[in-house]
């Protein structure tokens, strides 16, 4: 027999009918036949099985499919085992042998076509495009009894069984194009690549699976959850039309199929009814053929026409199929989307706790679920923070968009010499540790000497080197121990301030900031070691020395000219107003501020850029303070601001 049977592996027929792109309609059944792009809408793991019964006069139950899928970002992987995807034919070979001159024995054959397993991969390029491939493994097991002459001393006819297996790999590609929520298009190949074994035995040649290259074109129109319409066309001139839908957890599907190789024109229907939750789906479907099916069939028709599909052919029987699918996910369903993030403040590492009070960025978060969601924003900056820094949680109503602040803590040991462009990863988390949404933005990280020009932020420079300042101040004061021990305690603060200033200014020179970095502030140690600085640096250093030994200071911000700002230091002498004469008889050289208990205290301004001595610096400071702050009403108008270091 020289045959060329059209026994083709699967094309588009699925035992649950056609459901379109499965993410939008139902959870996956890994139906490679109509889903060559292989995309499925799970977040983590998915397991599904199809178990059913076939009615051929008797009832045969089969596990049709067992599949597992895993999603890794935009990559989707799946594997399926299909023990029930097989079709077996039993027939007499047409050859018979006469044994012992009288008895005729017919020889029989058993041909079994199987799809054993498949592997799938898909990549989601963006919201609109998925592409993927499916690799499937087929096996053809042929057993046939033959009569074989055996010649030794005499000639015998021996009845034996030929047994041969031929395997085949089949690779198909597919692509999905999601135009919008209502329209989807899909295209896939059928039998694009085949790699197969040939048959050794001549008896089986011509009975092997054939591979016609075809294509699948699919379109879905989905105006509402409860009504979707799908059309699937194969270039072999077969098609499927289906309607599917979902409402209140229930799913339905009805597929009618025209198979070019089967009669009548609409060869059958696949109705399906199911129920699903976020975690599982159960679907009961059936395959009803409109032509009569019989467990006995004509060999000549099989010989002439073959079959076109292993599980859907003119020899297939009506079926009932139960499909189960589980979503096993360590990643819960996404409830919110992070639409955008706006970084509102540059990052100055020295202001280590400033961003706890003042958010450095704001994000717009949309609740896409149908329930109120408590979100936790967090941020991590590459190279700056080791862990995510969480911001306070916030409740967002269903469908609402909220502006969410992102706070930050910079480690106090963090050092950076030059400004660097880094990346801030913003996260929004709901119920689990895995974020629902994240967004990355570029962020400029300034150097630790960078300053934003806000005098109130100079306190970070004052306090950062406080240990150095304390050691340095104590060293200076210890040299004047004999003086300090003999003075009245009331003027102790004043004398210590004077001793520290006079020692501090020895050898110091006024130097401007580096030209390229106008807002550059030295730490006290740098100023003392470099023996110079501008008004910011000198005020920071002197204030730090005083604060380190418990002398309260404030900074005076002279903002009279936007181009040239100035800073000097106010010292709390801790003298009461009645004690002013202990340090001066000139009541214009000090001014009174109330402390926290409401008592008056004498404060004196010191111009730290007057690198002569304490008295001179006091005089210069007083002169400037009186002129800018009082005579020009700077304090009243806000052009002169007094900022307590603590």
């Amino acid at each position, binding site marked *: 027999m020289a045959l060329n049977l059209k026994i083709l592996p699967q094309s588009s027929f699925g035992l649950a009918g056609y459901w379109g792109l499965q993410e939008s309609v139902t959870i996956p059944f890994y139906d490679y036949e109509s889903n060559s792009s292989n995309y499925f809408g799970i977040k983590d793991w998915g397991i599904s099985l199809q*178990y059913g019964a*076939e009615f051929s*006069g008797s009832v045969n139950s089969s596990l049709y499919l067992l599949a597992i899928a895993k999603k890794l970002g935009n990559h989707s992987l799946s594997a399926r085992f299909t023990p029930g995807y097989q079709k077996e034919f039993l027939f007499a070979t047409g050859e*018979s042998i*006469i044994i012992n001159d009288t008895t005729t024995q017919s020889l029989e054959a058993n041909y079994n076509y199987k799809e054993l397993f498949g592997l799938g991969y898909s990549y989601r390029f963006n919201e609109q495009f998925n592409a993927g491939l499916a690799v499937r493994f087929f096996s053809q097991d042929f057993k046939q009894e033959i009569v074989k002459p055996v010649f030794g001393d005499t000639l015998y006819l021996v009845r034996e069984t030929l047994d041969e297996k031929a395997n085949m790999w089949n690779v198909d590609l597919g692509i999905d194009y999601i135009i919008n929520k209502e329209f989807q298009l899909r295209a896939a190949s059928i039998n694009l690549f085949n790699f197969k074994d040939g048959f050794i035995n001549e008896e089986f040649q011509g009975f092997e699976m054939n591979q016609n290259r075809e294509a699948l074109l699919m379109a879905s129109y989905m105006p509402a959850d409860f009504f979707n319409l799908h059309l699937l066309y194969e270039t072999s001139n077969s098609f499927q039309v289906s309607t599917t839908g979902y409402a209140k957890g229930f799913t339905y599907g009805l597929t009618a199929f025209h198979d070019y190789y089967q009669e009548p024109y609409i060869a059958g229907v696949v109705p399906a009814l199911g129920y699903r939750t976020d975690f599982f789906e159960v679907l009961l479907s059936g395959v009803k053929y409109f032509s009569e099916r019989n467990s006995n069939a004509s*060999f*000549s028709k099989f*010989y002439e026409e073959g079959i076109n599909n292993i599980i859907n052919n003119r020899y297939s029987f009506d079926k009932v199929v139960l499909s189960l699918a589980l979503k096993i996910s360590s990643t819960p369903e996404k409830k919110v989307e992070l639409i955008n993030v706006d970084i509102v403040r540059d990052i100055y590492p020295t202001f280590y706790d400033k961003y706890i009070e003042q958010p450095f960025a704001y994000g717009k978060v949309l609740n896409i679920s149908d329930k109120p969601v408590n979100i936790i924003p967090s941020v991590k900056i590459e190279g700056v923070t080791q862990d995510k820094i969480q911001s306070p949680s916030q409740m967002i109503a269903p469908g609402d968009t909220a502006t969410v602040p992102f706070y930050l803590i910079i480690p106090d040991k963090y050092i950076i010499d030059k400004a660097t462009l880094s990346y801030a990863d913003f996260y929004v988390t709901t119920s689990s540790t895995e974020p629902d949404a994240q967004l990355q933005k570029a962020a400029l990280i300034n150097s630790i000497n960078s300053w934003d020009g806000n005098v109130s932020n100079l306190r970070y420079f004052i306090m950062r080197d406080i240990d150095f300042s304390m050691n340095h101040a104590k060293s200076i004061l210890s040299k004047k121990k004999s003086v300090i021990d003999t003075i009245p305690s009331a003027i102790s603060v004043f004398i210590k301030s004077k001793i520290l200033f006079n020692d501090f200014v020895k050898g110091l020179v006024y130097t401007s900031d580096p030209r390229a970095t106008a807002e550059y502030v030295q730490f006290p140690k740098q100023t003392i070691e470099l023996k110079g600085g501008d008004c910011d640096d000198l005020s920071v250093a002197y204030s730090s020395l005083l604060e380190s030994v418990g002398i309260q200071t404030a900074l005076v911000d002279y903002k009279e000219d936007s181009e040239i700002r100035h800073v000097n230091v106010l010292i709390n002498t801790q003298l009461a107003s009645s004690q002013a004469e202990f340090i001066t008889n000139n009541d214009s050289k000090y001014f009174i501020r109330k402390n926290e208990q409401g008592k008056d205290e004498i404060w004196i301004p010191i111009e730290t850029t007057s690198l002569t001595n304490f008295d001179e610096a006091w005089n210069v400071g007083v002169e400037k303070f009186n002129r800018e702050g009082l005579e020009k009403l700077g304090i009243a108008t806000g052009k002169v601001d007094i900022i307590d270091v603590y």
Partner: protein
Amino acid sequence: MKKLLKYLIISAVAFILFSCDKPAPTQLIDDTTDEFEVELLNKDLENPYSSGTDTSGITQDLTGITNLISVSGIKITTKNRTNEFSLAQAMFFDKSKPIKYSDGRLLAYKTIIPGTIKFNGTEAHVVPYRIRYREGGTPKDTLIGGKYLLYNIANGVPDPFYFPYDASVSFEYVPFIGGNNISFNIVTPYEINGTVSLNGNRSNKNLEATLSWNGRGEKRVLVIVCLLKPGQMQSIPIYKMKTADDGEMRIPGRYLNQLPLDRFEKIVFTFIRSNEGFRGSGNNELLVSSQSIHSIVIDIP
């Protein structure tokens, strides 16, 4: 609840896995004509024997036959030359005189010559009827009596009996002692003309034979495959194959390539289209057979 769900799932999966059958198979009923039945005719190719196969196409087991009348139109094609013969014969067995093997098995019956017989008006000769058989590994032959015979090799020589195809041959029987004369017509089959395509060669063991003939689509034809040793005239029948009279049959290569072809020079394919029928009953039962036979002799490549 979670535990219960887990157990339920495990139980369901176990139930499904262990309760599975295979999907229902389909039994294909052979309604094609591309079928054949094969019978081995000779086990010992060095010392062939047969209980009834000869060029007349008589291949039946004679133990089951009471009486036999056979007419044949025979053609033998060797290379491009075809010789035609006609043959008529009759044999009547005496069921009370069985001939047995030494172990008691029935081999045949003695024949009798009960009267005169004419085919198409020509009286048949009575000739000795000898059969060959094997016993205990030793080939033997025995004379079982006489039989009636007419044959025409060419132009009515030696007998003026001409086998007509798709027509009839008249038969007349006149008993020697008492009884009624018997006469009837034997319907003859349509002439069979075969061709053989023998490809491959014996050394590569890839011989394949495709047989074609003028198929009539009715009944079946027999194909006898015989081998012929160098220098010998009598072929050794190997296989008897019965197939539909559809005009074509491919003999699977294994039937030829497993034979010890290096000992043989020629292979003979004999096509036989026959009509057979029984007349009478009991001891008067008569198998009437007419056949068109075409043997094609081919050098084994």
